[in-house]
């Protein structure tokens, strides 16, 4: 595979990928096994940051930065906010219902298999030709993303915005009692 | 004393907030926040327990007593001249002012009166301790609100007043200078001119405060309409001093019920009131009070009569039987001593009525439904000295 082409940059990329991937997996496992909700949220930060790192390795800077800004900067912070503001019981002592572990495992494995199969089926034979091509040619610069979003997919984009706005308004109406 | 429409509205709003808060208090248990005894906002060891709903105060109770020194008991075993050493430490920022009402009460019981020169100098020193005290209030309010610059200015300019007190009495903080029947010493040379200069500095500090803090939009947003105390609540709690005048009650003991022994009528000055009763009003009234105080001092400095500074009093002071109540307008408000004498060397009973005690007892009433930061501004604008609460 051409990804393993012997250039310094690619070696570095592969090493970085290995480190980040291992980190993400470990953090993901810790995320679901830890009993402390705040710790879980913090492990989520590690997972999301690692994935942002992977995006950068794939030359998708814009996606990576959006990942950091939206997921870490906003969503996880909201999680932490919610956990700290409410009186969620922290730490041990909580009796977690473990009966559903086996079905959950089955579903998780099935889901993974499905996604892996479909991705492999669709992209399996495509070769990413990285060498000698800039990100611009790969169609991943911010300008190109913006062009695609606001020209080709303008209608879906606006529909999604309206939907989110409606959801937001609805949430506020439900949450406010006075 | 008139109740303005805004006060009525504020009162109604407070009642409504009260009802709502009561409901919340019954239905959910919020977080309890313990401010103090060691907390930067309590300047001293006052403990404030606040029951919170989010950052809103459901119930807030000040708990004094961490510095109670039992002065009323101790006064019963001190001779009359010794008592002034103790009571100096009640309001430690305006120490000389603490001595005056007690000395006046003793003079009243003994039917002695200080010579005119002593009376005027006593009044000047009284006002100087007011300046030393309230100038620090101006700085402290800034510090509590996060604008620490004015705090340093206040400390800087307060030095000039303290220097004058020190030059005249020998004590920067605790002069112990007032005597039954007069004063310990006469003024040093050049003191009058130097004090005029210090008054100029204080007026400049007032201008700086007005520009830097009082006129600031953020400051106004933090204090206007916050901590509104209507006039009838204020009198019911016995609030006094600038806190009472900020509710529109035109009452100043210096002007209206000045006890014999102080010569405020030699000066031409004005008592300022403010109709709003909020934190801003209290600050504003205090600022004007400092300005008026500098004018009083300036005028009295120019009208010090010649003569002795001590009346004829016996070497060993035995106070005839009787009871006397003397209250003066101290920096923090009305400070009074109810002295019961049995013709002994020591007072039989001394009830110390300190201003902050009454002023702070209003806190549970006024902090209902406010936010935690507002507790800080309200406490700061009510202005208390811990020693004045705990005695």
């Amino acid at each position: 595979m051409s990804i393993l082409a012997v250039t310094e940059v690619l070696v570095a990329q592969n090493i970085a990928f290995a480190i980040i991937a291992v980190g993400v997996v470990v953090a993901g496992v810790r995320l679901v096994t830890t009993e402390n909700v705040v710790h879980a949220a913090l492990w989520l930060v590690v997972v999301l940051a690692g994935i942002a790192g992977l995006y950068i390795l794939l030359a998708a800077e814009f996606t990576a930065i959006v990942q950091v800004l939206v997921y870490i900067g906003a969503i996880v912070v909201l999680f932490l906010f919610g956990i700290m503001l409410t009186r969620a019981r922290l730490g041990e002592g909580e009796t977690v219902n473990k009966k559903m572990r086996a079905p959950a495992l089955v579903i998780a494995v099935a889901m993974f298999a499905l996604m892996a199969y479909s991705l492999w089926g669709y992209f399996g034979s495509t070769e990413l030709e990285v060498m000698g091509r800039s990100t611009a040619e790969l169609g991943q610069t911010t300008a190109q993303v913006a062009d695609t979003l606001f020209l080709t997919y303008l209608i879906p984009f606006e529909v999604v915005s309206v939907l989110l706005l409606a959801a937001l308004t609805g949430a506020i109406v439900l949450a406010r009692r006075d | 004393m008139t109740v303005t429409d805004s006060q009525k509205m504020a009162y109604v709003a407070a009642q409504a907030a009260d009802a709502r808060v009561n409901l919340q208090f019954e239905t959910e248990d919020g977080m309890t926040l313990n401010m103090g005894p060691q907390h930067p906002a309590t300047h001293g060891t006052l403990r404030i327990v606040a029951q919170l709903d989010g950052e809103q105060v459901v119930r807030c109770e000040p708990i004094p007593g961490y510095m109670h020194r039992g002065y009323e008991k101790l006064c019963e075993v001190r001779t009359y001249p010794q008592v002034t050493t103790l009571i100096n430490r009640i309001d430690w920022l305006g120490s000389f002012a603490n001595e005056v009402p007690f000395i006046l009460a003793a003079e009243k019981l003994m039917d002695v009166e200080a010579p005119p020169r002593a009376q005027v100098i006593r009044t000047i020193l009284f006002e100087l301790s007011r300046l030393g005290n309230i100038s620090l209030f101006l700085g402290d309010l800034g510090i509590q609100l996060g604008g620490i610059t004015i705090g340093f200015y206040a400390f800087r300019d307060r030095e000039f007043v303290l220097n004058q007190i020190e030059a005249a009495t020998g004590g920067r903080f605790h002069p112990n200078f007032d005597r039954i029947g007069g004063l310990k010493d006469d003024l040093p040379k050049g003191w009058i001119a130097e004090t005029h200069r210090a008054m100029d500095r204080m007026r400049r500090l007032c201008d700086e405060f007005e520009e830097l803090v009082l006129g600031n939009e953020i400051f106004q947003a933090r204090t206007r309409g916050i901590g509104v105390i209507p006039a009838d609540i204020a009198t019911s709690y016995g609030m006094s001093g600038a806190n009472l005048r900020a509710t529109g009650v035109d009452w100043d003991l210096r002007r209206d019920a000045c006890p014999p022994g102080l010569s405020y009528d030699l000066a031409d000055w004005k008592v300022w009131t403010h109709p709003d009763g909020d934190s801003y009003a209290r600050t504003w009234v205090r600022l004007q009070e400092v300005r008026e105080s500098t004018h009083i001092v300036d005028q009295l400095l120019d009208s010090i009569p010649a003569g002795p500074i001590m009346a004829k009093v016996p070497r060993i002071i035995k106070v005839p039987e009787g009871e006397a109540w003397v209250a003066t307008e101290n920096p923090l408000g009305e400070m009074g001593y109810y002295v019961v004498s049995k013709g002994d060397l020591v007072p039989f009973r001394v009830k110390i009525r300190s201003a902050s005690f009454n002023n702070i007892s209003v806190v549970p009433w006024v902090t209902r439904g406010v936010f935690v930061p507002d507790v800080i501004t309200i406490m700061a604008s009510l202005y208390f000295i811990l020693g004045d609460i705990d005695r």
Partner: protein
Amino acid sequence: MSELIFAIELAYWQQTLIKVLVAAVLIPTTALILGIVFLFKMMSWMQSRMGPQEAGPRGLLQLAADGLKFLQKEDIIPDRADRFVFKAAPVVVLASTFLTYVILPAGPDLIIENLPTGIFFAMAVSSLSVVGVLMAGWSSSNKYALMGGLRAGGQLIAYELPLILAVMGVVIQAGSLSMQDIVWAQADGSMFGFGGLGLPFVITQIVAFFIFMVAIQAELTQPPFDMPVAESEVVGGFHVEYTGFRFLFFFLGEFATAFAFAAIAATLFLGGWWVPGIDPNSALANIVGPIALFVKIMVVAFLIFWFRFTYPRFREDQLQRFAWKYLIPLALANITITGILVVVL
């Protein structure tokens, strides 16, 4: 991407190492510079403080005294604190600052990494510090710390939006997210057909500059937006339990972040390293650039600290109201007008 550092060809790993070292040295240095110039000298003159005017020659020893004091303090971790999170929090805050330095251009070739999405990257990583602050507030097992952390979180989120929206105006006008391109756009611009002075965006984007300055003041949790650390309310807020070296981390982070934000403001609105009269393509620009940038940073930092020493503090809800009711609509209006003008002109 600049492959050259003063025209010396280096291997990738060597470049990376040098860049990391430069950033690692820059952070404490800049924090110290701001600390000495503004916190000690300017503040002591403005507030007539004694210590920094008197200690040592010209009062310069005050910083050494304070630094020594921090270092010899006992490292206390509260008994019931979440130890790991407690220890990690200052590092997270400092890391976010560290990452911001990556995209700061100090000259045509002096930049650690010229990302095409530079300013966007800076906004993203600066939002990371919220996580560190929340970690610190939560793990201290202290009510004041928790309140301070929550306040900081709410405040930083509320001001992220006006910050980014203010930047958008500049980005629309420059037509790029890259910091270098923004500098170039200002260098190439012209005022009423006169190109000699270029076009610093502070002229066309004065509204955005105002919003940006207000927002970074809030991001830095400085007065008048210092509710998260207000000592008279929450006694230092999220770092109330931190002592000694760990506190120093927060302290350094605060000043280094102030420097970074001042640098971003200088780059976005004042032309960054570019000086009128010096050819931006020449090697001279690489030498004059850092100096020019530094001067501009000091001007912006002066504004930041001037506000800090002048204003009293808002209340938390007033701050939120200010952000949502005034700053964000203003920023949106600014973007709209800029967008229209860019299309029309």
